[in-house]
């Protein structure tokens, strides 16, 4: 009975997904690997084989190493600043205190907004002529800073927007994690006279470890694909100081239609993603 029913399901239900996925995900990725060995403008067939030259060129482009460094800086800031902030807020609003639900929603709201909108809003905030920074500067009677036009400051301005936009998402992860912790641990600890900090250190933190690893994982993934927010803020400038790998790919590969070079960037990004995904899962998420 079951056997006869199987065939129509296999024939009808799987092919659409397989076709779409193969056509628009797997094949392009394979082609990226292929094109990365050619110098090609996208028309006709790729014929000019250049071996590893695109990769060598990539490594010698200083904007690319800046981009790579920025991506790791974003991951670092996510772990050192954003994660503790999110966890701290989660421990506060996961209690049933008046207004907790409203605070949660407010903190989560930036996450729902498009990166492009968030980027534009902050472009205004940082604006040295009209923005909030200009107003604050004039309040203290100092020359207004043009944060996004400063080669050394711009990346920190971008990092602040990233934390502003994403801490709420990580907070929600932590709230979900905190709600899974058995309340009786806390009651027992309280009876034993454990302080608030002791309870946090010896109950919350260890039991939240899987969520923390998950949060770090999302920070890594998010950093590696960051693009939408950079474009309205700085477009990768000034002088390439805020490039990420994807904005670099866009600026140097797509807008100049250098398919081979752009594909080489894609391949490097792919290798980094897969290595991190496998490595991270193997090392940290083995037991989750």
């Amino acid at each position, binding site marked *: 009975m079951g056997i006869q029913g*199987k065939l129509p399901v296999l024939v009808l239900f799987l092919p659409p997904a397989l076709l779409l996925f193969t*056509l*628009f995900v797997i094949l392009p990725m394979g082609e990226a690997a292929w094109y990365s060995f050619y110098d090609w403008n996208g028309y006709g067939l790729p014929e000019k084989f250049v071996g590893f030259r695109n990769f060598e060129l990539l490594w010698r482009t200083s904007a690319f190493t800046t981009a790579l460094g920025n991506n790791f800086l974003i991951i670092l800031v996510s772990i050192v600043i954003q994660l503790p902030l999110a966890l701290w807020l989660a421990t506060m609003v996961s209690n049933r205190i008046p207004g907790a639900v409203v*605070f949660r929603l*407010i903190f989560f709201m930036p996450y729902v907004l498009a990166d*492009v909108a968030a980027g534009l*809003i*902050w472009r205004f905030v940082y604006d040295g002529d009209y923005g909030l920074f200009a107003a604050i500067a004039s309040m203290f009677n100092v020359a207004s800073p043009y944060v996004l036009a400063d080669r050394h400051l711009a990346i920190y301005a971008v990092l602040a927007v990233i934390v502003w936009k994403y801490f709420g998402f990580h907070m929600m992860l932590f709230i979900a994690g905190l709600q899974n912790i058995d309340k009786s641990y806390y009651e027992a600890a309280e009876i034993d006279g454990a302080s608030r900090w002791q309870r946090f250190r010896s109950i919350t933190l260890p039991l939240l470890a899987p969520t923390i690893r998950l949060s770090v994982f999302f920070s890594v993934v998010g950093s590696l694909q960051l693009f939408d927010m950079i474009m309205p803020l700085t477009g990768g400038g000034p002088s390439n100081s805020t490039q990420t790998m*994807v904005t670099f790919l866009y600026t140097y590969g797509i807008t100049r239609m250098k398919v081979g070079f752009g594909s080489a960037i*894609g391949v490097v990004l792919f290798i980094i993603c897969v290595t991190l995904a496998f490595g991270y899962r193997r090392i940290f998420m083995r037991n989750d």
Partner: protein
Amino acid sequence: MTDRTLAPTAPTTLGATPTKPARRASAFSSHRMSFVTWLYLYVSLFFVAAIVLLPLLTTALGGFKTLGDLRVHPFGLPGEWQWSNYTDILLSARYWQMLGNSFLIATLTVALTLAVAAMAAFTFAHVTFFGSSFLLNYFLIGLMFPVATAILPLFIRIRDLGLLDTYWGVVLPQVAFGLGMSILLFRRFFQNVPKELFDAAFVDGCGYLGYFWHITLPLSRPILATVGIVSFVGSWNSYLLPLILLNSDSKYPWPLGIMVYQGEYSSDWQLILAFITLTILPTIIVFFAAQKHIVAGLTAGAVKG
């Protein structure tokens, strides 16, 4: 205008909690807070909330100002409310066209994702066949790298298929890249449907197709909602794919349209702010109207992946 939508929703969300006064009271008596703790808690929360809301509120209010007013007082209420900044945009065809484009692309993406992913996941959950786990892992490869890695070959493929500058040219890759996650979420849900239902249905002469249509789908509303929300929000906010795959302004979804607008009115910040406010307004309204589902959907989608 953002502040107006925030204010009335606050009491309603607050109003949602006191439905369980007993539990709340008990939670409180067991954790009696000292005044200092209370103060520390609320000062911190209000401080962070202010940092989150301040940029949003100044954006919404800035849209009501004149450029001169904005320059002198970026904070605070407008000296004279310039409603025309907003009404001009609301009466322009371009605003509605942008939102319409975004809505169309997102709706097509959601519909196709739900159909294709649910069918595939159903096969993986209920039909045992040779190569099943291999094929599932094949789809999960898609979870490991972002769309940007293959963007140039994707562009060439879409161009060669003649789909450049069409809605489908954006929709199809979006669906394809969402498949891994969607199939994973659906499959986990389908597997948890009690096996007895399946057996009973088969005894009654219901085949796989009938089972999928009459039993699985009606039972799957929560997961359909989750996957739908994740892919709708993703598509509504997406920027990179439309940027590369669309050429004509008339097809631009709002994240692209807003960048074009910003480019045109680069120093007229009051207009740009009004435009930003109006484009994020739908998101904020929907977020507060369906906050429970959206928060659950977006975090569950992430956690279960």
